[in-house]
């Protein structure tokens, strides 16, 4: 079990809440809420240790592609980066 945070300044605040995915093997859930303070804050909780650089790269890319301000919570159960990106994109599309 590993937990870490990724933060990024600026961005447009999201409106409303989104919840996609499930905490099941090879999957993850993403909760997205309006920012409690400016910028984006992501809390990652993952059952798989040792992939923090990959997580940071995935989140960095996502926040570059979609400059949002939001509070994001990710509960991961061994998802691949493909699934992580898909769930993040789906959370955004749910808000749109």
């Amino acid at each position, binding site marked *: 079990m590993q937990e870490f945070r990724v933060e990024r300044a600026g961005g447009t605040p999201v409106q409303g809440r989104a919840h996609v995915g499930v905490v099941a093997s*090879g999957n993850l859930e993403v909760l997205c809420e309006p920012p409690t303070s400016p910028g984006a804050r992501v809390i990652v909780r993952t059952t*798989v240790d*040792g*992939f923090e650089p*990959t997580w940071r*790269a*995935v989140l960095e*890319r996502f926040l*570059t*592609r979609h400059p949002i301000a939001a509070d994001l919570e990710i509960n991961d159960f*061994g998802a*691949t*980066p*493909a*699934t992580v*990106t*898909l769930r993040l*994109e*789906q959370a955004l*599309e*749910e808000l749109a």
Partner: protein
Amino acid sequence: MTSPTVPRNWSSRAEAKAARLAAARNLRTGKRIDAADAITFLETVIRPGDRVCIEGNNQKQADFLSRCLAAVDPARIHDLHLLISVIGRPEHIDLFELGIAAKVDFSFAGPQSLRLAQLVADGRVQVGAIHTYLELFGRYFVDLTPAVALIAADAADADGNLYTGANTEETPTIVEATAFRNGIVIAQVNEIVDRLPRVDIPASWIDAVVVADRPYAIEPLFTRDPEQITDVQVLMAMLVIRGVYERHRVCRLNHGIGFDTAAIELLLPTYGESLGLRGAICTHWALNPHPTLIPAIESGWVESVHCFGGEFGMEGYIAARSDVFFTGADGSLRSNRMLCQTAGLYATDLFIGSTLQIDRDANSSTATRGRIAGFGGAPNMGSDPHGRRHASDVWLSLARGESTIERGRKVVVQLVQTFRESGVPTFVERLDAIDLAHSAGFALPPVMIYGDDVTHVVTEEGIAYLYRARNVDERRAALAAVAGVTPVGMECPTERATALRAAGLVAYAEDVGVRRSDARRSLLAARTMRDLVDWSDGLYAPPARFRSW
């Protein structure tokens, strides 16, 4: 002109065959041999150093005969040169450990890839070469003609005619190469019947028939449970349908094995239908009888399917859909691996498949450290055949135009997630295949699909249209643009990816009209094995291990 003092004997092979069979005459009644005499029969007709072909592929296996061969006395029978499509059974490896065989030419070793790598490392087996199916079959007719072939059939009649039914596969090819060059053909059958449903191999090509202790081994290798298809695979399938099949209007194609391509098959009647693509794509197939194609067939998408082999459980469904499948007068499927490989090589416009590793130049490999897996047929499907001389709109749409003589190209797609399970990157700087070749002493690294044959790479990130690249730098950048956060992918900054998208070398989901939020399992035409059975009107009978009811 002088004549040789000793006239040459031009019939030595025929005489040698006759002598071997004569030595075993007490063990044969007509062509029948008793199962209890099978080991002695093999010891009598096989000679040390013989090239022996065991029918064994990734579907059916002549396992009774291979078990008998592994039980011969190594003092009598040793140093055989084994010819086999798929080293799939433990006793195939035992043959080398016991010294019965010393050399092998093969195509695929999936299930035994670890043990084979160990034997090679220990110097217990000499690997002639790892082939594609077509190469191996081709060599049976040139320099690797078998002295003895051990094959499997469903049934024989009293004369020795054989019925191979839905799983005909490569039996006719092996038998033809052996029988017509004075080799000895021994067939194991499940039963002897008075009247065969149809004759797949004529009796005059067969020398001995034995009823096996149990039906030949068979694996339902191409059955994929829709339950295990993920949302990401649905997304990638949507990208393929829009960005490759719809764009190029692909009608004649082959799908590799796996959940990625199963997802495409299951999206045709839903997503494909919503795009109005029925009849415009995916009409003619060179394909094993994938159960996941049933919904597309039932929805009127599929004109024809020619099969490499059979698939356990699909027999009844196929027999009831003879407009679509190649079937015999008895109604059952006729498969033929060599002919379907030829069809896949020359008569299809597209191959799509997955792999384990892809390098910067799009070379792909399924070889990983400590395993010698081999190829099977994918390199035949996944290559641009230089002998092709007929045009199609798809083929011409990829014309390179570097010459005044126009020439098209086959669409060769690699479909992968940027990372495999457990966080291993698919895109790598150096294929494990290179190190494997060095350590095993192979002349060539076992590359599955050469990069210069790959026209498209599809990942969850998007599509790289590699065939549109004007130079190596552009090609590598396009590949990196879909390689995600792998080390290879990190080399492509967002600005470069944006430029490549604008130039049409790369497309992300939004560029081809795919909404990621639509990528959900609910879009699959069948989400369970039960759904597939229902689509088939109860004609598809999945093997027990795939049934939860």
